[in-house]
């Protein structure tokens, strides 16, 4: 990745950048406030990781899931089919001091993405977390189990249709004056 592409992104306002669909590594790229965001499909995702790894992005910083159930109208590059879930991966290139973010659309009907742990072993725990919290299955993960919730937990807490817990509050009368 060249330095210029990063600088261009910083100058362009975010709204305009979304309309212009340019590509990087044959994948639609968006500059979101100076940050480079790639939008591969699920099919392109493993090969793209391989190419980025060859390009010097040797370290995977982070992976997390997002559930867009209640926010469907988000801005995406033209021609990309939005899914209910997104898997967001942050990679870093230490030599060129560049970061790149991947947003992979995952449909609700078949929430499966291939695992990146073969290339980036550090994504092991984050993928388990995304599975635990969103129910996204990472195909090829060596040990895809719940990591933060108990093993027998039902449901995936960070999904938008999973209610937050509340403790019922009962208001009582004021205590009687002590005699």
């Amino acid at each position: 990745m060249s330095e210029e592409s990063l600088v261009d992104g910083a100058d362009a306002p975010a709204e305009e950048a979304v309309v212009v669909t340019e590509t990087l590594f044959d994948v639609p790229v968006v500059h979101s406030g100076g940050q480079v965001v790639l939008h591969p499909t699920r099919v392109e995702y493993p090969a793209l990781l391989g190419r980025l790894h060859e390009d010097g992005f040797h370290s995977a910083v982070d992976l997390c899931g997002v559930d867009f159930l209640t926010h469907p109208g988000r801005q995406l590059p033209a021609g990309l089919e939005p899914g209910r879930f997104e898997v967001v991966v942050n990679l870093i290139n230490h030599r060129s001091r560049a970061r790149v973010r991947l947003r992979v659309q995952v449909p609700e009907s078949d929430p499966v993405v291939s695992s990146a742990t073969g290339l980036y072993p550090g994504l092991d725990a984050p993928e388990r977390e995304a599975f635990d919290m969103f129910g996204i299955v990472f195909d090829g993960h060596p040990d895809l189990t719940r990591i933060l919730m108990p093993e027998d937990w039902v449901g995936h807490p960070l999904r938008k249709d999973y209610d937050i817990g509340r403790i019922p509050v009962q208001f009582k009368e004021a205590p009687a004056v002590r005699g």
Partner: protein
Amino acid sequence: MTVTHDPASARTDEGAQELSSRDIVSAIERLHELGAVLRLSEAGALEAERERTPDDETMIINMGPQHPSTHGVLRLMLELQGETVLRCKPVIGYLHTGMEKTGEQLSYLQGPTNVTRMDYASPLFTELAFSMTVEQLLGIEVPERAVWIRMLMTEMNRISSHLLFMATNGMDLGAVSMMLYGWREREETLRFLQEVTGLRMNHNYIRPGGVAADLPDGWRDGVLRLLDMLPGRLAEYDTLLNGQPIWRERLQGVGVITTEECLALGVTGPILRSTGYSWDLRRDMPYLAYDEVEFDVVVGSYGDAFDRYAIRLAEIHESMRIVRQCLERMPAGDYRIQDKKVTPPPRARIDESMEALIHHFKIFTEGFKVPEGEAYVAIESPRGELGCYIVSDGSANPYRMHVRAPSFINLQSLPHLMHGGLVADAVAIISSVDPILGEVDR
């Protein structure tokens, strides 16, 4: 509670968080628990296969979650052959309180109150990462004084966090007097943080748009008192620990990791630097005003527990250098942005102006709206890269708030560091990774 139909759980094994016996687990999983980080060579795979000992010679034991040396509620399942650790698997989640879910219910102004409880040993860093991400989404720049106050406070917090490490590391290895000294100096540092923020921990001081309050009168005396006191105390640590053969024997050559393994595992912070790889976001991808101050990035050479200890000790000195520069160069001006959208009106205006009162009320009840978008901002916390990823849908609450916790990622290096070591060294290794379980489980 709504339970959605979940095709995922039908297809995967949701049991077996725990370490299971060797004849059940698959070969890949076993290598993973052995700490095979990168792809193994054929010779390495053969050797790993030879290590396959009958189950009656090995024993799986639990260490934690109530073990005092596991820094909270970390549970390790260790497979032992005699005194040697063959496999190790961290089991976490005992402190999981759903803070990322909670963050979706709180406004951007309430957000720092939530995230500050993640890494309770260095709370200001999580506040800073959160605030910087919100500022990136808002497209605002904080005033120069706020930038320098943030630098001063986070470096103070780095000192207190590393002092806490000195204390617990000493305690774990039986140097109990080190624990007392480390705790004493940390308390002095926290006293300064309390003078400025009002609280020892969980400050809620750094907020989107700046900081909560200006530095109080006499803050310079507090900083100078610390800067005068600490060098002598650190020299004492040096004499007490570095000059002590028992201390060196317990740490040198224990829990060795290489640069390649660190990068593959995403491990950052003092663990990565202990391998001789110079990577510090403060210098390599500067934020705040770190490109204007002078400091050195301390690296080790062996990647062992001693290097990780020595790096943290040296980083206290470097943080003190930065604090001194903050003291000299602290600019005058506003401590928070004067943007009516984000900043509440000053207290005095509320008494005289009805509009100011309404404005104040609206900011604290409704919060402020953040434009639609997403951003990831990372900073260098005492434990490594601390990142915050926020998706905004244009409302006053984050649509999704995710924190990339360095301890969570760094814990993945444990199976690797432990493999082939002694069970007594396990304590030294956990301590040298310096995990904060509040941040691991979030």
